[in-house]
């Protein structure tokens, strides 16, 4: 205990804080011997798994940015025109399969389209693999396929190849869908979270958390009823409009698993910057806020399926906001914060109450608090 008297408390606290910051920057180590649900939640556990297992095994320069879609240089025709393709893959295991505002089918198409769109690509072709459980109603599968057809038509893509597997009853939960998507990246488009710079503004394209709260309530375990539907939607049109009208867009991400908070942390880490957001500025629908309050979870960590986060050069932010708002899917877009030089790698929030706190990555799913 004598050691504690050597330094004033403030300095010792700072030492501990510095130590935490160093620890946070260290390469994550996968400690678990088995996969737990946390590894699928999109937070720290997921990132650790990806970096420790998949990045280790597959490491290559196209994978390493760990963006939503890989950008592939493709040698062009005899005229020598090289084009950049974007390739993404995604899997859908949502439960329940049908929920207010959509189902696993349109979710799969929109999710894949959005991963391409936020890479700056024009989505073109999709694949769809179905893993079906023995006994799954054909009528449900028809509904799912029709939703996929409609969503693809809206997004301007075609499902051009697919695969079907059936597993014994109990080996799957009705229907899983796995997709891939390809698109073309127009010349001159180069988006990436590592490109964020101090002074940039951070925007969201609409109210956050609708999808995640809808799914939680649709599971029927909560006995909460709220007037909220999933925000599942294809963002390609919104993105094309934004990129076409506004120069200075640095990065786009769709805020799915892990929510907006996770995206902001990825920005802060990839670009070695800070991100400061204002709670007052973040659009959240009242039913979502209410449900989140009741459950003790934070809408910042709740998934969206039709919302993007944009990092835009400061002087272009208002123009970007106006462009987003001019599109039906961005009508409630908002500037929620800015990129700062300090504190590097951290996301902070000015609370509506007037205080400040850190918005860290969650380890796994947000767990409801008991009281």
């Amino acid at each position, binding site marked *: 205990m004598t050691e*504690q008297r050597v330094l004033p408390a*403030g300095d*010792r*606290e700072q030492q*501990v*804080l510095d*130590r*935490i910051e160093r*620890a946070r920057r260290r390469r994550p180590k996968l*400690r*678990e011997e*088995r*996969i*737990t*649900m*946390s590894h699928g939640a999109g937070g*720290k*556990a997921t990132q*650790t798994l990806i970096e420790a297992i998949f990045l280790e095994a597959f490491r290559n320069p196209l994978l390493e940015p760990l963006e939503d879609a890989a950008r592939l240089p493709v040698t062009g025709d005899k005229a020598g025109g090289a084009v950049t393709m974007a390739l993404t893959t995604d899997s859908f295991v949502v439960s329940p399969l049908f929920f207010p505002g959509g189902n696993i089918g349109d979710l799969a198409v929109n999710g894949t389209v959005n991963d391409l769109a936020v890479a700056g690509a024009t989505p073109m072709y999709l694949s769809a693999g179905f893993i079906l459980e023995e006994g799954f109603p054909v009528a449900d599968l028809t509904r799912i396929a029709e939703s996929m057809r409609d969503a693809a038509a809206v997004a301007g893509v075609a499902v051009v190849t697919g695969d079907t597997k059936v597993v014994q009853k109990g080996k799957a939960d009705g229907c899983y869908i796995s997709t891939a998507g390809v698109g073309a990246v127009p010349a001159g488009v180069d988006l990436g979270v590592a490109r964020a710079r101090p002074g940039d503004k951070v925007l969201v394209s609409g109210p956050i958390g609708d999808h995640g709260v809808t799914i939680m309530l649709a599971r029927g*375990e*909560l*006995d909460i009823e709220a007037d909220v539907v999933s925000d599942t939607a294809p963002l390609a049109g919104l993105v094309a409009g934004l990129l076409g009208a506004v120069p200075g867009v640095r990065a786009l991400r769709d805020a799915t698993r892990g929510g907006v908070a996770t995206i902001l942390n990825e920005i802060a880490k990839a670009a070695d910057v800070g991100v400061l957001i204002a709670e007052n500025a973040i659009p959240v629908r*009242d039913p979502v*806020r*209410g449900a989140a*309050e009741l*459950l*003790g979870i*934070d809408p910042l960590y709740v998934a969206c399926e039709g919302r993007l986060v944009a990092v835009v050069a400061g002087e272009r932010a208002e123009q970007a906001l106006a462009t987003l708002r001019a599109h039906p899917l961005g009508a409630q877009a908002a500037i929620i914060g800015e990129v700062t030089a300090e504190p590097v790698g951290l996301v*902070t929030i*000015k*609370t*509506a*109450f*007037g*205080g*400040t*706190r*850190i918005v*860290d990555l969650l*380890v*796994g799913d947000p*767990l*409801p*608090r*008991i*009281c």
Partner: protein
Amino acid sequence: MRFVDEFRDADKARALAARIAALCEPGRQYKLMEVCGGHTHTIYKHGLEDYLPESVTLVHGPGCPVCVIPMGRVDDAIHLASQPDVIMTSFGDMMRVPGSNGAFFDANARGTNIRMVYSPLDSLKIAKSNPDKRVVFMAIGFETTAPSTAMTVLRARAQGIANFSVFCNHVTIIPAIKAILDSPDLRLDGFIGPGHVSTVIGCRPYEFIAKSYGKPVVVAGFEPLDILQSIYMLMVQLHEGRSEVENQYARVVPWDGNPVALKAIGETMELRPYFEWRGLGFISHSALRMREAYAGFDAERLFEVPGVRVADPKACQCGEVLKGVLKPWECKVFGTACTPETPIGTCMVSPEGACAAYYNYGRLTRQRVPEAVSIELSRP
């Protein structure tokens, strides 16, 4: 949003902060303990400490229900969940609390069926739809959650649901506060009383704190203005040299508590002679078990419970943190060996735990809101 926004008004917060600052006597340090983990959560979530003058320090107390569960009880629970045909149900924040061989999430990865529920009553639904299984509810929490466990048992009996039982780990708040007050290395000036617990037990049980120990208590609500106002009320008491129990949360907390809830607890549960608390050791008469008359719903009687005892890891100073002797960052392993991904002590597990809250939210708390201390107190 109504009933939320009016309790988070920054202008009112600034005014309260100015009053608190005006009550600080020069050179005096004020250490106030918020007993309840829910308060800790609010304090960090809203950045409330930014409003407090340097001389007012909040100490995070033992009222985080999952934080005080000893590792041995987690191991016991996993043992129960590993028995044939058992479905265990648990509150969400219990899922990541480490036992000596992992948490519930890890146990599930090895084959147990531990499901998250939002209310103990959900366990009855699961029991009814799985008549060939035995459903065990992992009951944790203070007097806040004990009534819902009690009501669930009463309903199970009324409906004749025989495949449901409770692994009872309910604890009581007063003995824990007393253990803290009796700790020789403690220096606290007052208590922010646990609001949710008090909706059940009322305010009267805290009177010994004010009378015998001379420390003021203000039972507080869970919105940030509630807590700020309670701090103000404590500061007024300290300024006037009073030590009384006051009720800031009167909109919810009746002075005499909730007799229906207390009756349900009393009907189904009784005090254990002693119970081990993580970090605080054995405290007599500090926990509840099922009464003999409800033996058929008592997992500890229906199953062999190994009664695992796991000593708290030596490096872990959860006990000192829970007693308010150490701030989280003063613990030897805080932020290095003990992090939210790899918690050693349970203070790091639940977001309500003092250490997890500090780790996740607290690292900026030393940036004060400048307006807070510069506003002059306008006297009426």
